């Protein structure tokens, strides 16, 4: 993992090799704190990214990062290695982030309706769909990034969690079901609504631009 000297951020490294984790884990479980720090260094970026995207707050994400690795450290003696260390600590972090997100929902109950497509009485689409630019190719426009960030921040907790876990983190529906306690059908329904709402925000951005 390299530190970009000109950047305040830590850049990710090449894909992790699980066998390197295994060696560090064995040593960490034997009490080698430097080995545990090695595991932390290998997985901290991914854990932070998950927490930040789930909670939309760098401060909250930093706390989840600390809580998650502390929990992993304390439970090292119980970790039997039936999953990869990275998957295990990621799951711990997902649980911490979900608890915070849901607690926040309880505390701040105001959530507006989600945007979506408009239809006439015959069920026909009445809006013109903007031309979404080549999503793969272009560098992200700063104002588009801000529009997407704003739309994502407006998603209610139950929509945000499935959108982040599926579309940003790439988990399967079954993995999300296990983490959230929801059914796959409910997850798909919420994901669809979240995508429609985000799509509407992007569409509005391009419509106002043209």
């Amino acid at each position, binding site marked *: 993992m390299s530190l970009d000297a000109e950047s305040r951020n830590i850049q990710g490294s090449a894909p992790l090799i699980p066998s390197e984790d295994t060696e560090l884990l064995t040593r960490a479980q034997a009490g080698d704190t430097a080995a545990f720090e090695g595991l932390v260094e290998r997985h901290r970026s991914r854990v*932070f990214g998950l927490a930040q995207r789930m909670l939309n707050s760098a401060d909250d994400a930093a706390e989840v990062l600390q809580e998650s690795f502390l929990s992993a450290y304390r439970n090292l003696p119980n970790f039997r290695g039936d999953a990869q260390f990275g998957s295990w600590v990621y799951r711990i972090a997902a649980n911490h982030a979900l608890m915070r997100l849901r607690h926040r929902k309880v505390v701040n109950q105001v959530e507006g309706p989600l945007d979506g497509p408009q239809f006439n009485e015959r069920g026909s689409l009445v809006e013109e769909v903007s031309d979404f630019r080549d999503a793969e190719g272009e560098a992200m426009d700063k104002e588009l990034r801000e529009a997407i960030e704003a739309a994502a921040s407006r998603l209610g907790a139950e929509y945000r969690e499935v959108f982040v876990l599926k579309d940003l983190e790439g988990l399967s529906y079954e993995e999300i079901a296990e983490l959230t306690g929801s059914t796959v059908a409910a997850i798909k329904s919420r994901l669809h609504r979240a995508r429609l709402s985000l799509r509407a925000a992007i569409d509005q951005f391009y419509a106002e631009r043209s």
Partner: protein
Amino acid sequence: MTSSTCKDSIELLLEYLDGELNGELRARLEEHLGGCSPCEDFLKSYKATPTLCRKALARELPREVAAKLTDFLRAEMAKAANK
């Protein structure tokens, strides 16, 4: 075969893109898409949405957060060792 409306079709997009629509529903949806250019455009925009969001919401770990994590864990590990 009854044709789909735009509303019916858009409701099926997630499962369609996941490859999970049964034969008849898929056929009805594709028939509708073939004859409805607003829905064809809508499908393109719906498909592009996750990719655009991943790009917009990518986050890197700030160095100071990483440094604080190291300090925090070292303090906790030292506490555990002194027990």
